[in-house]
Protein backbone atom coordinates (compact mmCIF):
# COMPACT_ATOMS: atom_id res chain seq x y z
CA UNK A 1 0.00 0.00 0.00
CA UNK A 2 1.25 3.52 -0.83
CA UNK A 3 2.42 5.59 2.11
CA UNK A 4 0.00 8.26 3.20
CA UNK A 5 2.80 10.81 3.21
CA UNK A 6 5.97 10.66 1.17
CA UNK A 7 8.76 13.19 0.79
CA UNK A 8 11.53 12.43 -1.70
CA UNK A 9 14.51 14.76 -1.84
CA UNK A 10 12.41 17.80 -0.93
CA UNK A 11 14.32 21.08 -0.96
CA UNK A 12 13.44 24.63 -0.11
CA UNK A 13 15.70 27.65 0.17
CA UNK A 14 15.22 30.79 2.23
CA UNK A 15 17.77 33.47 2.98
CA UNK A 16 19.79 31.95 5.81
CA UNK A 17 18.05 28.58 5.83
CA UNK A 18 17.69 25.67 3.46
CA UNK A 19 15.78 22.44 3.67
CA UNK A 20 18.08 20.01 1.88
CA UNK A 21 16.84 16.87 0.16
CA UNK A 22 14.62 15.63 2.96
CA UNK A 23 13.16 12.19 2.37
CA UNK A 24 10.91 10.15 4.58
CA UNK A 25 7.58 8.41 4.37
CA UNK A 26 4.70 7.60 6.68
CA UNK A 27 2.67 4.44 6.08
CA UNK A 28 -1.04 4.27 6.81
CA UNK A 29 -2.04 3.41 10.34
CA UNK A 30 0.92 4.95 12.12
CA UNK A 31 1.97 7.98 14.14
CA UNK A 32 5.14 9.73 13.02
CA UNK A 33 6.95 12.10 15.34
CA UNK A 34 8.72 14.94 13.59
CA UNK A 35 11.40 16.21 15.93
CA UNK A 36 14.19 18.73 15.81
CA UNK A 37 15.33 21.93 17.46
CA UNK A 38 13.83 25.33 16.70
CA UNK A 39 14.57 26.42 13.15
CA UNK A 40 15.34 22.87 12.03
CA UNK A 41 12.75 22.90 9.26
CA UNK A 42 9.83 21.07 10.87
CA UNK A 43 7.35 23.89 10.31
CA UNK A 44 8.55 24.29 6.72
CA UNK A 45 7.73 20.63 6.11
CA UNK A 46 4.30 21.04 7.72
CA UNK A 47 3.65 24.11 5.58
CA UNK A 48 4.65 22.21 2.44
CA UNK A 49 2.19 19.44 3.26
CA UNK A 50 -0.54 22.08 3.59
CA UNK A 51 0.55 23.90 0.43
CA UNK A 52 1.43 27.07 2.33
CA UNK A 53 4.93 26.94 0.84
CA UNK A 54 6.02 25.21 -2.35
CA UNK A 55 8.94 22.79 -2.53
CA UNK A 56 11.66 23.92 -4.94
CA UNK A 57 12.90 20.42 -5.61
CA UNK A 58 12.00 16.81 -4.98
CA UNK A 59 8.53 15.37 -4.65
CA UNK A 60 5.91 15.45 -1.94
CA UNK A 61 2.85 13.21 -2.02
CA UNK A 62 -0.13 13.01 0.30
CA UNK A 63 -2.29 9.92 -0.26
CA UNK A 64 -0.41 9.58 -3.56
CA UNK A 65 -1.36 13.07 -4.75
CA UNK A 66 0.71 16.19 -5.19
CA UNK A 67 -0.59 18.87 -2.79
CA UNK A 68 0.13 21.55 -5.41
CA UNK A 69 -1.72 20.03 -8.36
CA UNK A 70 -4.41 18.22 -6.35
CA UNK A 71 -4.65 20.88 -3.64
CA UNK A 72 -8.34 20.57 -2.90
CA UNK A 73 -8.51 16.78 -2.82
CA UNK A 74 -5.41 16.57 -0.65
CA UNK A 75 -6.63 19.13 1.88
CA UNK A 76 -9.99 17.36 2.12
CA UNK A 77 -8.04 14.45 3.60
CA UNK A 78 -5.89 16.46 5.99
CA UNK A 79 -6.78 17.61 9.49
CA UNK A 80 -4.47 20.32 10.79
CA UNK A 81 -3.80 21.71 14.23
CA UNK A 82 -1.44 24.65 14.44
CA UNK A 83 0.78 25.32 17.45
CA UNK A 84 -1.23 28.48 18.13
CA UNK A 85 -4.65 27.81 16.59
CA UNK A 86 -5.87 30.95 14.83
CA UNK A 87 -9.41 31.26 13.54
CA UNK A 88 -11.54 34.34 14.11
CA UNK A 89 -11.33 35.71 17.64
CA UNK A 90 -14.69 37.49 17.38
CA UNK A 91 -16.62 34.32 16.47
CA UNK A 92 -17.94 31.63 18.76
CA UNK A 93 -16.58 28.10 18.39
CA UNK A 94 -19.94 26.94 17.04
CA UNK A 95 -19.88 29.66 14.38
CA UNK A 96 -16.36 28.66 13.36
CA UNK A 97 -17.55 25.08 13.01
CA UNK A 98 -20.42 26.23 10.82
CA UNK A 99 -17.88 28.00 8.58
CA UNK A 100 -15.62 24.95 8.40
CA UNK A 101 -18.36 22.31 8.00
CA UNK A 102 -19.39 22.86 4.34
CA UNK A 103 -15.84 22.62 3.07
CA UNK A 104 -15.30 18.98 4.00
CA UNK A 105 -16.87 16.09 2.14
CA UNK A 106 -16.73 13.85 5.23
CA UNK A 107 -17.66 16.32 7.97
CA UNK A 108 -19.35 14.51 10.85
CA UNK A 109 -21.42 16.97 12.89
CA UNK A 110 -22.45 14.46 15.62
CA UNK A 111 -18.77 13.56 16.00
CA UNK A 112 -17.82 17.25 16.29
CA UNK A 113 -20.49 17.78 18.93
CA UNK A 114 -19.32 14.72 20.84
CA UNK A 115 -15.71 15.90 20.66
CA UNK A 116 -16.40 19.40 21.97
CA UNK A 117 -18.43 17.87 24.79
CA UNK A 118 -15.66 15.41 25.60
CA UNK A 119 -12.95 18.10 25.39
CA UNK A 120 -15.16 20.49 27.40
CA UNK A 121 -14.91 23.22 24.78
CA UNK A 122 -17.56 25.91 25.36
CA UNK A 123 -19.04 26.34 21.88
CA UNK A 124 -20.90 29.47 22.92
CA UNK A 125 -17.77 31.43 23.85
CA UNK A 126 -15.81 33.78 21.60
CA UNK A 127 -12.77 31.97 20.26
CA UNK A 128 -10.57 34.88 21.34
CA UNK A 129 -11.68 34.50 24.96
CA UNK A 130 -10.54 30.87 25.21
CA UNK A 131 -7.32 29.83 26.91
CA UNK A 132 -4.55 28.50 24.71
CA UNK A 133 -5.25 24.95 25.79
CA UNK A 134 -8.96 25.25 25.04
CA UNK A 135 -8.19 26.76 21.65
CA UNK A 136 -6.06 23.74 20.89
CA UNK A 137 -8.87 21.46 22.00
CA UNK A 138 -11.30 23.31 19.72
CA UNK A 139 -8.83 23.01 16.83
CA UNK A 140 -8.44 19.29 17.54
CA UNK A 141 -12.22 18.82 17.49
CA UNK A 142 -12.38 20.61 14.12
CA UNK A 143 -9.51 18.54 12.75
CA UNK A 144 -10.86 15.22 13.97
CA UNK A 145 -14.47 15.81 12.92
CA UNK A 146 -13.98 15.28 9.19
CA UNK A 147 -12.36 11.84 9.32
CA UNK A 148 -9.05 13.04 7.93
CA UNK A 149 -6.71 10.43 6.51
CA UNK A 150 -3.74 12.43 7.71
CA UNK A 151 -3.69 14.49 10.89
CA UNK A 152 -0.93 17.08 10.90
CA UNK A 153 -0.28 18.37 14.39
CA UNK A 154 2.25 21.17 14.82
CA UNK A 155 3.27 21.34 18.51
CA UNK A 156 -0.30 20.57 19.61
CA UNK A 157 0.46 19.64 23.21
CA UNK A 158 2.37 22.80 24.12
CA UNK A 159 -0.57 24.50 25.86
CA UNK A 160 -2.31 21.41 27.20
CA UNK A 161 -2.52 20.20 30.76
CA UNK A 162 -0.94 16.79 31.46
CA UNK A 163 -4.28 15.03 31.91
CA UNK A 164 -5.64 16.12 28.54
CA UNK A 165 -2.25 15.57 26.91
CA UNK A 166 -2.30 11.96 28.01
CA UNK A 167 -5.86 11.43 26.80
CA UNK A 168 -4.99 13.10 23.48
CA UNK A 169 -2.11 10.71 22.95
CA UNK A 170 -4.43 7.79 23.66
CA UNK A 171 -6.93 9.23 21.21
CA UNK A 172 -4.27 9.55 18.51
CA UNK A 173 -3.25 5.94 19.03
CA UNK A 174 -6.90 4.93 18.65
CA UNK A 175 -7.28 7.19 15.60
CA UNK A 176 -4.67 5.26 13.62
CA UNK A 177 -5.70 1.86 14.96
CA UNK A 178 -7.93 1.01 11.99
CA UNK A 179 -4.89 1.15 9.71
CA UNK A 180 -6.38 3.82 7.43
CA UNK A 181 -5.41 7.12 9.03
CA UNK A 182 -2.01 8.42 10.10
CA UNK A 183 -0.72 11.24 12.26
CA UNK A 184 2.29 13.48 11.70
CA UNK A 185 3.13 14.96 15.06
CA UNK A 186 5.68 17.76 15.21
CA UNK A 187 6.77 18.49 18.75
CA UNK A 188 9.50 19.47 21.15
CA UNK A 189 7.94 17.44 23.95
CA UNK A 190 9.73 14.23 23.14
CA UNK A 191 8.14 12.29 26.01
CA UNK A 192 4.85 12.47 24.07
CA UNK A 193 6.46 10.67 21.17
CA UNK A 194 8.12 8.01 23.28
CA UNK A 195 4.62 6.89 24.22
CA UNK A 196 2.87 7.31 20.91
CA UNK A 197 5.06 7.47 17.82
CA UNK A 198 5.60 4.45 15.63
CA UNK A 199 8.08 6.36 13.46
CA UNK A 200 10.52 9.09 14.37
CA UNK A 201 11.93 11.62 11.95
CA UNK A 202 14.69 13.90 13.18
CA UNK A 203 15.48 17.09 11.26
CA UNK A 204 18.34 19.39 12.07
CA UNK A 205 19.51 22.48 10.17
CA UNK A 206 17.26 21.54 7.28
CA UNK A 207 18.78 18.08 6.94
CA UNK A 208 17.36 14.71 7.79
CA UNK A 209 19.33 13.12 10.63
CA UNK A 210 17.27 9.95 10.65
CA UNK A 211 13.83 8.59 9.94
CA UNK A 212 13.11 5.16 11.35
CA UNK A 213 10.71 3.17 13.45
CA UNK A 214 10.73 3.89 17.19
CA UNK A 215 12.21 0.44 17.84
CA UNK A 216 15.00 1.01 15.33
CA UNK A 217 15.82 4.35 16.90
CA UNK A 218 15.95 3.05 20.45
CA UNK A 219 17.81 -0.11 19.39
CA UNK A 220 20.41 2.00 17.64
CA UNK A 221 21.16 4.92 19.93
CA UNK A 222 22.68 4.64 23.38
CA UNK A 223 24.08 7.07 25.88
CA UNK A 224 27.56 6.44 27.23
CA UNK A 225 28.54 7.92 30.61
CA UNK A 226 31.75 7.44 32.47
CA UNK A 227 34.85 8.73 34.13
CA UNK A 228 36.56 11.33 31.93
CA UNK A 229 39.88 9.51 32.33
CA UNK A 230 38.60 6.58 30.23
CA UNK A 231 37.67 8.85 27.33
CA UNK A 232 40.48 8.16 24.89
CA UNK A 233 40.53 9.10 21.21
CA UNK A 234 39.15 5.81 19.98
CA UNK A 235 36.14 6.01 22.30
CA UNK A 236 35.66 9.68 21.51
CA UNK A 237 35.48 8.82 17.80
CA UNK A 238 32.62 6.43 18.51
CA UNK A 239 30.58 9.06 20.31
CA UNK A 240 28.47 11.96 19.10
CA UNK A 241 28.07 15.24 20.96
CA UNK A 242 30.52 14.35 23.72
CA UNK A 243 30.19 16.48 26.84
CA UNK A 244 33.04 16.31 29.31
CA UNK A 245 32.63 17.53 32.89
CA UNK A 246 35.04 17.40 35.86
CA UNK A 247 33.59 14.11 37.07
CA UNK A 248 31.99 12.47 34.04
CA UNK A 249 31.68 12.45 30.29
CA UNK A 250 28.49 11.77 28.33
CA UNK A 251 28.01 11.04 24.66
CA UNK A 252 25.73 9.30 22.21
CA UNK A 253 26.65 6.28 20.19
CA UNK A 254 25.08 4.23 17.45
CA UNK A 255 27.66 1.48 18.00
CA UNK A 256 26.84 0.29 21.49
CA UNK A 257 28.48 -3.11 21.03
CA UNK A 258 31.75 -1.57 19.81
CA UNK A 259 31.84 0.97 22.63
CA UNK A 260 31.11 -1.73 25.22
CA UNK A 261 34.08 -3.73 23.92
CA UNK A 262 36.30 -0.66 24.10
CA UNK A 263 35.15 0.15 27.60
CA UNK A 264 35.48 -3.38 28.93
CA UNK A 265 36.28 -3.25 32.62
CA UNK A 266 36.50 0.51 32.78
CA UNK A 267 34.34 2.95 34.73
CA UNK A 268 31.61 3.71 32.22
CA UNK A 269 28.10 2.61 31.40
CA UNK A 270 26.20 2.25 28.15
CA UNK A 271 22.47 2.79 28.64
CA UNK A 272 19.32 3.26 26.60
CA UNK A 273 18.94 6.79 25.25
CA UNK A 274 15.78 8.83 25.56
CA UNK A 275 14.58 10.84 22.59
CA UNK A 276 15.69 13.97 24.37
CA UNK A 277 19.19 12.48 24.72
CA UNK A 278 19.23 11.67 21.03
CA UNK A 279 18.08 15.14 20.03
CA UNK A 280 20.52 16.81 22.39
CA UNK A 281 23.68 14.85 21.66
CA UNK A 282 23.05 14.29 17.97
CA UNK A 283 22.37 18.00 17.73
CA UNK A 284 25.63 18.87 19.46
CA UNK A 285 27.60 16.74 17.04
CA UNK A 286 26.31 18.51 13.92
Amino acid at each position, binding site marked *: MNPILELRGVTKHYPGFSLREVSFSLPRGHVCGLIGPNGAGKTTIV*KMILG*LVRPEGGALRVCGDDPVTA*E*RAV*KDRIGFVHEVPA*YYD*HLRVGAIAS*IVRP*FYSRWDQPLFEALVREFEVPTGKWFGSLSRGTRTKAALALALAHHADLLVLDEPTAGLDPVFRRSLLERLAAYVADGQASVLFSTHITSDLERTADYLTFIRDGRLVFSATREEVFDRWFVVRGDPRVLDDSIRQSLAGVEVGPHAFTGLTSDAAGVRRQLAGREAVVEAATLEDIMYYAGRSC
Partner: protein
Amino acid sequence: MLNLFLKDVRAGGIFLWAVVPLNIVAALQVSRSGGAFFWANVACAALILVAVSMLEWRNDAEPFVHSLPVTRAMVARARYVTAAAIGLLSLLVGATVGTARGLGLAAQGMPWPRWVSGDMALAFLLTFAVVAAIYLPCHFRWGFGKGNVAAALVLAAGIVVTGLAGPAVTGVQAAAGGAAQRGVPPGRIPQGVALLVEHVGLVAGGIIVVALAAGLLAVSAQVAARAYERREF
Protein backbone atom coordinates in the same frame (compact mmCIF):
# COMPACT_ATOMS: atom_id res chain seq x y z
CA MET B 1 -16.43 29.27 -3.96
CA LEU B 2 -19.88 29.81 -2.46
CA ASN B 3 -18.58 28.42 0.84
CA LEU B 4 -15.66 30.85 0.75
CA PHE B 5 -18.04 33.72 0.08
CA LEU B 6 -20.26 32.58 2.96
CA LYS B 7 -17.13 32.36 5.11
CA ASP B 8 -16.44 36.03 4.32
CA VAL B 9 -20.04 36.92 5.13
CA ARG B 10 -20.02 35.01 8.44
CA ALA B 11 -16.55 36.05 9.54
CA GLY B 12 -16.76 39.59 8.22
CA GLY B 13 -20.43 40.13 8.94
CA ILE B 14 -19.66 42.71 11.57
CA PHE B 15 -17.97 44.80 8.88
CA LEU B 16 -20.33 43.96 6.03
CA TRP B 17 -23.29 45.20 7.99
CA ALA B 18 -21.31 48.33 8.80
CA VAL B 19 -22.14 49.38 5.24
CA VAL B 20 -25.49 50.58 6.55
CA PRO B 21 -24.47 52.87 9.45
CA LEU B 22 -21.33 54.03 7.66
CA ASN B 23 -23.29 55.11 4.63
CA ILE B 24 -26.04 56.69 6.65
CA VAL B 25 -23.60 58.66 8.80
CA ALA B 26 -21.71 59.70 5.70
CA ALA B 27 -24.94 60.54 3.95
CA LEU B 28 -26.13 62.73 6.80
CA GLN B 29 -22.90 64.68 6.60
CA VAL B 30 -22.67 65.09 2.89
CA SER B 31 -26.13 64.64 1.45
CA ARG B 32 -26.34 68.28 0.45
CA SER B 33 -23.57 67.62 -2.01
CA GLY B 34 -24.13 64.91 -4.58
CA GLY B 35 -20.42 64.67 -5.37
CA ALA B 36 -19.42 64.27 -1.75
CA PHE B 37 -22.14 61.67 -1.21
CA PHE B 38 -21.06 59.68 -4.28
CA TRP B 39 -17.42 59.54 -3.24
CA ALA B 40 -18.27 58.92 0.43
CA ASN B 41 -20.33 55.94 -0.71
CA VAL B 42 -17.40 54.63 -2.76
CA ALA B 43 -15.04 55.17 0.19
CA CYS B 44 -17.38 53.33 2.60
CA ALA B 45 -17.63 50.36 0.26
CA ALA B 46 -13.84 50.30 -0.20
CA LEU B 47 -13.40 50.47 3.57
CA ILE B 48 -15.63 47.43 4.06
CA LEU B 49 -13.69 45.51 1.41
CA VAL B 50 -10.40 46.34 3.12
CA ALA B 51 -11.93 45.43 6.50
CA VAL B 52 -12.74 41.90 5.31
CA SER B 53 -9.08 41.42 4.40
CA MET B 54 -8.00 43.08 7.64
CA LEU B 55 -10.01 40.58 9.60
CA GLU B 56 -7.98 37.66 8.26
CA TRP B 57 -4.74 39.55 8.72
CA ARG B 58 -5.55 40.59 12.28
CA ASN B 59 -6.56 37.06 13.28
CA ASP B 60 -3.63 35.51 11.41
CA ALA B 61 -6.29 33.33 9.81
CA GLU B 62 -4.65 32.76 6.43
CA PRO B 63 -3.07 29.43 7.48
CA PHE B 64 -6.55 28.36 8.63
CA VAL B 65 -8.10 29.38 5.32
CA HIS B 66 -5.40 27.50 3.44
CA SER B 67 -5.86 24.39 5.53
CA LEU B 68 -9.41 24.19 4.15
CA PRO B 69 -9.93 22.13 0.99
CA VAL B 70 -9.82 25.07 -1.39
CA THR B 71 -7.36 26.23 -4.00
CA ARG B 72 -5.70 29.60 -3.84
CA ALA B 73 -7.46 30.62 -7.04
CA MET B 74 -10.79 29.86 -5.36
CA VAL B 75 -9.85 31.99 -2.35
CA ALA B 76 -8.94 34.91 -4.60
CA ARG B 77 -12.02 34.62 -6.82
CA ALA B 78 -14.35 34.25 -3.85
CA ARG B 79 -13.13 37.60 -2.54
CA TYR B 80 -14.33 39.14 -5.81
CA VAL B 81 -17.77 37.68 -5.13
CA THR B 82 -17.58 39.29 -1.69
CA ALA B 83 -16.52 42.57 -3.32
CA ALA B 84 -19.49 42.39 -5.69
CA ALA B 85 -21.82 41.78 -2.74
CA ILE B 86 -20.32 44.74 -0.86
CA GLY B 87 -20.73 46.93 -3.96
CA LEU B 88 -24.36 45.97 -4.43
CA LEU B 89 -25.17 46.35 -0.74
CA SER B 90 -23.51 49.77 -0.66
CA LEU B 91 -25.41 50.77 -3.79
CA LEU B 92 -28.67 49.68 -2.19
CA VAL B 93 -27.99 51.66 0.97
CA GLY B 94 -26.76 54.66 -1.02
CA ALA B 95 -29.78 54.57 -3.30
CA THR B 96 -32.13 54.33 -0.31
CA VAL B 97 -30.50 57.29 1.42
CA GLY B 98 -30.41 59.24 -1.86
CA THR B 99 -34.07 58.53 -2.57
CA ALA B 100 -35.03 59.65 0.92
CA ARG B 101 -33.03 62.83 0.35
CA GLY B 102 -34.71 63.34 -3.03
CA LEU B 103 -38.19 62.86 -1.56
CA GLY B 104 -37.33 65.33 1.20
CA LEU B 105 -36.26 67.91 -1.34
CA ALA B 106 -39.34 67.24 -3.47
CA ALA B 107 -41.57 67.78 -0.45
CA GLN B 108 -40.01 71.22 -0.12
CA GLY B 109 -40.78 71.91 -3.78
CA MET B 110 -37.17 71.60 -4.83
CA PRO B 111 -35.99 69.67 -7.92
CA TRP B 112 -34.97 66.00 -7.75
CA PRO B 113 -31.18 65.84 -7.17
CA ARG B 114 -29.26 64.94 -10.30
CA TRP B 115 -27.00 62.52 -8.45
CA VAL B 116 -29.89 60.27 -7.37
CA SER B 117 -30.29 58.62 -10.76
CA GLY B 118 -29.76 55.41 -12.68
CA ASP B 119 -26.63 56.61 -14.43
CA MET B 120 -25.00 57.54 -11.12
CA ALA B 121 -25.85 54.09 -9.75
CA LEU B 122 -23.99 52.67 -12.74
CA ALA B 123 -21.16 55.11 -12.16
CA PHE B 124 -20.93 53.94 -8.55
CA LEU B 125 -20.71 50.31 -9.62
CA LEU B 126 -18.01 51.05 -12.18
CA THR B 127 -16.01 53.18 -9.75
CA PHE B 128 -16.13 50.54 -7.03
CA ALA B 129 -15.21 47.88 -9.59
CA VAL B 130 -12.11 49.94 -10.49
CA VAL B 131 -11.18 50.26 -6.80
CA ALA B 132 -11.69 46.52 -6.17
CA ALA B 133 -9.88 45.60 -9.38
CA ILE B 134 -6.83 47.54 -8.20
CA TYR B 135 -6.98 46.65 -4.50
CA LEU B 136 -7.52 42.91 -4.61
CA PRO B 137 -4.55 41.88 -6.80
CA CYS B 138 -2.29 44.04 -4.60
CA HIS B 139 -3.74 42.41 -1.48
CA PHE B 140 -3.37 38.89 -2.80
CA ARG B 141 0.15 39.48 -4.11
CA TRP B 142 1.67 41.30 -1.14
CA GLY B 143 -0.69 40.64 1.78
CA PHE B 144 -2.59 43.11 3.89
CA GLY B 145 0.16 45.53 4.92
CA LYS B 146 2.29 45.88 1.79
CA GLY B 147 -0.73 45.21 -0.40
CA ASN B 148 -2.63 48.16 1.06
CA VAL B 149 0.32 50.47 0.50
CA ALA B 150 0.74 49.21 -3.06
CA ALA B 151 -2.97 49.60 -3.80
CA ALA B 152 -3.03 53.08 -2.28
CA LEU B 153 -0.06 54.11 -4.41
CA VAL B 154 -1.63 52.73 -7.59
CA LEU B 155 -4.95 54.41 -6.81
CA ALA B 156 -3.26 57.69 -5.95
CA ALA B 157 -1.28 57.56 -9.16
CA GLY B 158 -4.45 56.77 -11.06
CA ILE B 159 -6.27 59.71 -9.47
CA VAL B 160 -3.43 62.05 -10.23
CA VAL B 161 -3.05 60.85 -13.80
CA THR B 162 -6.68 60.59 -14.80
CA GLY B 163 -8.32 63.05 -12.49
CA LEU B 164 -10.58 60.22 -11.37
CA ALA B 165 -11.84 61.96 -8.26
CA GLY B 166 -10.66 65.43 -9.02
CA PRO B 167 -12.31 68.21 -10.92
CA ALA B 168 -13.70 67.15 -14.26
CA VAL B 169 -11.51 67.66 -17.26
CA THR B 170 -12.70 70.55 -19.32
CA GLY B 171 -12.97 68.52 -22.52
CA VAL B 172 -15.13 65.88 -20.92
CA GLN B 173 -17.36 68.48 -19.37
CA ALA B 174 -17.79 70.19 -22.69
CA ALA B 175 -18.56 66.92 -24.44
CA ALA B 176 -21.05 66.01 -21.71
CA GLY B 177 -22.81 69.26 -22.20
CA GLY B 178 -21.64 70.60 -18.86
CA ALA B 179 -22.77 67.59 -16.89
CA ALA B 180 -20.67 68.53 -13.86
CA GLN B 181 -22.48 71.80 -13.53
CA ARG B 182 -25.81 70.02 -13.62
CA GLY B 183 -25.07 68.07 -10.44
CA VAL B 184 -23.15 65.05 -11.69
CA PRO B 185 -20.47 64.19 -9.12
CA PRO B 186 -16.96 65.22 -10.14
CA GLY B 187 -14.60 62.66 -11.60
CA ARG B 188 -14.04 61.04 -14.93
CA ILE B 189 -16.10 57.94 -14.22
CA PRO B 190 -19.38 59.57 -13.10
CA GLN B 191 -19.11 62.18 -15.82
CA GLY B 192 -18.14 59.61 -18.43
CA VAL B 193 -21.07 57.37 -17.47
CA ALA B 194 -23.43 60.38 -17.52
CA LEU B 195 -22.20 61.17 -21.02
CA LEU B 196 -22.58 57.56 -22.13
CA VAL B 197 -26.14 57.25 -20.80
CA GLU B 198 -27.05 60.59 -22.36
CA HIS B 199 -25.95 59.25 -25.76
CA VAL B 200 -27.11 55.60 -25.70
CA GLY B 201 -29.83 55.55 -23.06
CA LEU B 202 -30.00 53.99 -19.60
CA VAL B 203 -30.56 50.37 -20.67
CA ALA B 204 -27.79 50.23 -23.27
CA GLY B 205 -25.54 52.31 -21.05
CA GLY B 206 -26.28 49.97 -18.16
CA ILE B 207 -25.36 46.93 -20.22
CA ILE B 208 -22.13 48.58 -21.33
CA VAL B 209 -21.15 49.72 -17.83
CA VAL B 210 -22.00 46.42 -16.16
CA ALA B 211 -20.13 44.51 -18.89
CA LEU B 212 -17.16 46.84 -18.46
CA ALA B 213 -17.17 46.41 -14.67
CA ALA B 214 -17.55 42.63 -14.94
CA GLY B 215 -14.78 42.42 -17.53
CA LEU B 216 -12.50 44.53 -15.39
CA LEU B 217 -13.15 42.38 -12.33
CA ALA B 218 -12.71 39.16 -14.33
CA VAL B 219 -9.29 40.28 -15.61
CA SER B 220 -8.34 41.50 -12.15
CA ALA B 221 -9.44 38.19 -10.62
CA GLN B 222 -7.17 36.32 -13.02
CA VAL B 223 -4.25 38.56 -12.06
CA ALA B 224 -5.05 38.19 -8.34
CA ALA B 225 -5.34 34.39 -8.58
CA ARG B 226 -1.99 34.13 -10.33
CA ALA B 227 -0.38 36.52 -7.88
CA TYR B 228 -1.79 34.54 -4.97
CA GLU B 229 -0.36 31.30 -6.34
CA ARG B 230 3.11 32.77 -5.83
CA ARG B 231 2.53 33.81 -2.22
CA GLU B 232 4.03 31.76 0.59
CA PHE B 233 2.94 31.81 4.20
